[in-house]
């Protein structure tokens, strides 16, 4: 898989359930960032986790990073219909000028 690949590609859950999305990458990174995109709209930054961090929380979001497995997960707890969107991980590689490499995204649908 390419740098920054999410799985699943699509996820459908009921409101109130938790949603977990995973991201894998291949090279060494400085940090990993998660973004959200509503259909046809801009990218909203959710959370950044540095390569020396293992877990980070922000509201209902929990991100983990396992650099030994080159993987990250995004957990959204107590999901709401408004969480329906595509979620992308993006990695900032070491020695790569801070450019972000995005994965293909997970399309999350939260049914009311």
């Amino acid at each position, binding site marked *: 898989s390419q740098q920054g690949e999410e799985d699943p590609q699509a996820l459908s859950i009921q409101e109130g359930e938790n949603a977990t999305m995973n991201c894998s990458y291949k090279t060494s990174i*400085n*940090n990993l*960032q998660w973004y959200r995109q509503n259909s*046809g709209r801009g990218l909203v*930054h959710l959370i950044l986790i540095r390569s020396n961090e293992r877990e980070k929380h922000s509201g209902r979001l929990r991100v983990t990073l396992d650099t030994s497995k080159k993987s990250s997960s995004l957990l959204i707890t107590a999901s709401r219909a408004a969480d329906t969107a595509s979620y992308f991980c993006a990695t900032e590689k070491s020695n*790569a000028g*801070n*450019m972000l*490499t995005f994965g293909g995204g997970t399309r999350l649908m939260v049914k009311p």
Partner: protein
Amino acid sequence: EPEVTQTPSHQVTQMGQEVILRCVPISNHLYFYWYRQILGQKVEFLVSFYNNEISEKSEIFDDQFSVERPDGSNFTLKIRSTKLEDSAMYFCASRGTSASSTDTQYFGPGTRLTVL
């Protein structure tokens, strides 16, 4: 809260025409980026810009593309002779005030470019 803005929100052009996409980064940011997203595909890096010069560019960013910071606030992407395959959403992003690699990149709402 400061935000990145982009104009226009939607640009329709004929193949072969020049287009300029405009961005106003967050005011105290020093690092600027352009990305694009073809419909249904991944967001792809185009170019990064710092201290009035390109710091990195991807294979996509060929001679048809150029960037400029014409004044203290705007950051533009020019496509000299558009092709059908340039149709995409173009995102501008800006990043902080230090050389730290742990700053968040903040994205604008995008310009949807349609080449006919």
